[in-house]
């Protein structure tokens, strides 16, 4: 499947043939700068992304845990999600997200 990622500099990176289980793994395996400190168990908030408007409705709503974790991230918005909690299913082919500030490893 394909993923469209706007990185921290606003550059669009197109990832083809992604086979990762979650969005976080897809982004990280491609070598984009994403901290994802806890390795994907919704404990750190450093895999924060903004999901493109067109895709928001296609995602399962965040769990209570994810919602609580999103309260700790920098600049939470309506479209905020933890990328480690988004499972990459077939219907998400073409998913477009922007890496949020605070998720970059500095």
């Amino acid at each position, binding site marked *: 499947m394909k993923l469209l990622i706007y990185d921290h500099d606003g550059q669009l990176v197109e990832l083809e043939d992604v086979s990762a289980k979650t969005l976080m793994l897809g982004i*990280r395996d*491609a*070598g984009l*700068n994403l901290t994802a*400190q*806890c*390795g994907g*168990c919704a*404990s750190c908030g450093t895999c924060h992304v903004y999901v493109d408007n067109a895709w928001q409705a296609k995602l399962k709503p965040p769990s*209570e*845990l994810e919602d*609580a*974790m999103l*309260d*700790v991230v920098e600049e939470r918005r309506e479209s905020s999600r933890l990328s480690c909690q988004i499972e990459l299913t077939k219907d998400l082919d073409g998913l477009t997200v922007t890496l949020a500030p605070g998720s970059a490893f500095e």
Partner: protein
Amino acid sequence: MPLKTAAFYSTHKIDLELGTKVVSLESGTNNALLSNGTHIAFDSLALAVGARARTLTCPGTNLGNVYYLRSIADAHLLRAAIPNAENIVVIGAGFIGLEVASSLVQQPTQVTVIEAENRVLARVVAPELSRFFASAHVDRGVRLLTSRKVQSLVGENGVVRQVQLEDGTLLDADLVIVGIGSVANLELAQQLGLLVMNGIVVDSQSRTNRPNVFAAGDCALFRGPFNASGLRLESVQNAMDQSRVAASVIAGADKTYDSLPWFWSDQYDLKLQIVGLPCGATERVLRPGTASEISVFHFQNDTCICVESVNRPREHIAARRLLACGKVTKQDLEDVDFDISALMKRQSK
């Protein structure tokens, strides 16, 4: 499992030499000998060599089907062995032992956890949480034996068959998983003659007693104003934050390590989250819950210094923000309507 791509290292001007070990460092020189026979000269050196699994010292530890869990290779070996096991004995009820036990719950195996201390997670959580986790495991079918020590592992044809305890009990075991802590890798530091205790002693700038040598992560023992006797934290947060400090200082910035420690552990459907350290606490206040949630607040005099919570992510997050400025008091908790998220919102106004 690469966490970064090759491109990451090249753009950041990092030469990555995989499969190469630093075999020796000579005291008094700034030179490292590598396993491929070459030498590297350095201006500054950062030791981020981690720790290794503490090994069991009783008879029988060399038998087959005795596993440790530290590296991804260990994890693969263990995973391959599990489907063939009927009786699994886990030695040690720390985070690793209990997380392993919790991940075995789907298997049609009898899992027994043996712990020398009188409670699980004794080194890392309050007694109330130890009781909470002990019940959680027992309720899900784990046999838990605390205050019991392993005497020996008994084998047949080179493979483990039984675990004998000091009180004479014999437990059937066709797979043994040992999770009894870790030992810092100190050899290189010792060759350099650095000050070591159970870790390489560093100050709040991650500097050892040799000015151009730094250490961070699992191998480092941090001695700061609030922990004079030293503390070797083993967590991802500590490894990342402490090495960032080391890198900044080496690059000439004036940075000190003052991050609030935090940690998590997932067992079954229970998410334990800890923020702060309970060292120096004078009192703790329990906020009881159900079989699936609980929290404990540690106070030093009147100031909250650590919060351990299970399945209360909002409380954890609020505590992370509040502890950073030290603003939860015992009076707050005594308030019947205490709600830490509301407190956080009030204070951040």
